[in-house]
């Protein structure tokens, strides 16, 4: 079933354990051509394990993976030709120049010398690296090396590009460049799948998969995920976790269902409610002096994550509804 109809990435029930610990627990997802798909989740959520399986570095314990309609277990070589992989840790040889690195990569992917030369020129131009082409990688700054890394992954024109935390170590300007580059690639039909723990980076994706404790807990466009949160979000900062829990209880007692969904995460109280702006004055008047600050806003991806998982994104913030 190779052809236009096959999705670029098709994972079914991917599961993997490290000893007793289940790092991935039945993850299924499909990424069509031309889509930018972000795997968003806290560190330890299973992103890196999933990335390693998708990149064929690691076979899953069970489940299947198809790239461009080809089975990754049975047609590994062909699958690998279709994948461009940008690892989180650098993979360039620091003792070689940028061009030498590209040439080495090209040979490993079976490109001819002529293809390598023209493709390298094209990519270095696009990534604004042309003037550093002959410099040893060890002389490049982190941002430039990252760009060279991306050029290396794109050399063989892979229909699927995988990037593990691609904006690590990039300054804001370089992040913007990267976003533009990925948008251009997806416009040309490349499926781009990236992992990230940054909400703003995921926000730019066409679709997001929320990964928590090895499970895909949410899947959809950024707007869809956010709209799943019941209305606006009011966050009230208090003096500490106990105070937050107590206050949440009092809010519930006082307003009942009128307060919407009330919970506490760490030192703050969270309310999800439609028309939150109308409710805020009543809330403030009911508990004078108990708030350190209050913010109100449309739900963010972080809110969606908290809503779906029942805990905060950072550390081990349990939410108590």
């Amino acid at each position, binding site marked *: 079933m190779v052809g236009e109809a096959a999705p670029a990435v098709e994972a079914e029930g991917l599961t993997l*354990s490290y000893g007793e610990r289940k790092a991935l627990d039945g993850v299924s997802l499909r990424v069509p051509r031309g889509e930018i798909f972000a795997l968003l989740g806290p560190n330890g959520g299973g992103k890196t394990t999933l990335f390693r399986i998708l990149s064929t570095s*690691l076979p899953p314990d069970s489940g299947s993976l198809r790239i461009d309609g080809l089975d990754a277990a049975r047609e590994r070589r062909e699958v690998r030709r279709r994948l461009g992989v940008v690892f989180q840790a650098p993979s360039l040889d620091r*003792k*070689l120049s940028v061009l030498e690195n590209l040439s080495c990569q090209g040979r490993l992917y079976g490109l001819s010398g002529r293809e390598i030369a023209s493709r390298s020129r094209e990519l270095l131009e696009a990534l604004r690296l042309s003037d550093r082409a002959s410099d040893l990688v060890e002389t490049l700054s982190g941002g430039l090396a990252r760009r060279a890394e991306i050029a290396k992954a794109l050399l063989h024109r892979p229909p699927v590009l995988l990037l593990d935390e691609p904006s690590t170590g990039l300054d804001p300007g370089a992040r913007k460049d990267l976003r533009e580059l990925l948008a251009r690639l997806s416009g040309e039909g490349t499926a781009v799948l990236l992992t990230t723990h940054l909400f703003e980076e995921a926000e730019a994706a066409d679709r997001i998969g929320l990964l928590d404790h090895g499970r895909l807990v949410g899947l959809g466009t950024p707007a869809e995920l956010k709209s799943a949160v019941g209305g606006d979000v009011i966050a009230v900062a208090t003096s500490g976790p106990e105070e937050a829990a107590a206050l949440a209880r009092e809010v519930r007692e006082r307003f009942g269902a009128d307060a919407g969904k009330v919970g506490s995460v760490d030192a703050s109280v969270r309310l999800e409610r439609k028309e939150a702006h109308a409710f805020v004055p009543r809330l403030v008047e009911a508990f004078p002096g108990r708030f350190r600050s209050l913010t109100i806003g449309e739900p963010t991806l972080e809110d969606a994550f908290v809503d779906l998982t029942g805990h905060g994104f950072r550390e081990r913030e349990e939410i108590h509804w």
Partner: protein
Amino acid sequence: MTAALTLARREIVRFLRQPSRVVGAIAPPLLMWLLIGSGFRGSFRAPGEAAGGYVAYFYPGTVVLVILFASIFATISVIEDRREGFLQAVLVAPVAPHQIVLGKVLGGAVLGLLQGGVLLLFVPVLGLPWSARDLLFTVGVLALLSLSLTALGFSFAWSLESTQGFHAVMNLFLIPMWLLSGAFFPVHGAPLWMRLVMAINPLTYGVAALRRTLTPEGAAGAPGMGVALALTAGFAVVMLLVATAVVAARPGGPSRRRGRKP
């Protein structure tokens, strides 16, 4: 084959860009040769003792030691490649495991041969027999030894996480293997158990082949040329197969090892 040659070429380019490695591989054995060879000159009577005394006797062993060091340094680079990240990209490239082995081992073997070859410049100085045929033959044996030792080192290095671990392997295994190869002292004077160990040590045959060509006077008691050559070639083939099997069994190396539930 392109992939293997690409990786081999990279190995050589990297080496030439790190001059300290060149010095590190050639200088210590050379120094050892001169100091030990000169020091033993009076007290140690090498068999035959025609030309050059112990300095000459010790010479083939020194060449082998240079090759051993070169191979060790070349294969330590597997561990570095893994740590520095280069290997992770190679491991997801559409390349068969044996190509990776062949690339690494060929690159390392060329380096070993080059460094061993530098020592051949001492042949005329020592007044050892020298003919074009002998030289060609010697280079052939050195090539086989370089291949075997690099593949041997690679097989160890593939599953090791740190270069410290490799030093342990080197001191406990590779150096004794060299000491008990007839490079340092002849087989026939050794106690029986040691002679047995020397007989099953594949390196013994490489040293013997070199000694029979370079310093035939000192070759008394060493294995004959036919056996020496056959076993040296066999050693190379076996080690290449072992290295390939190690990679196939553990494609991800040490870090990807993970406990599976029974």
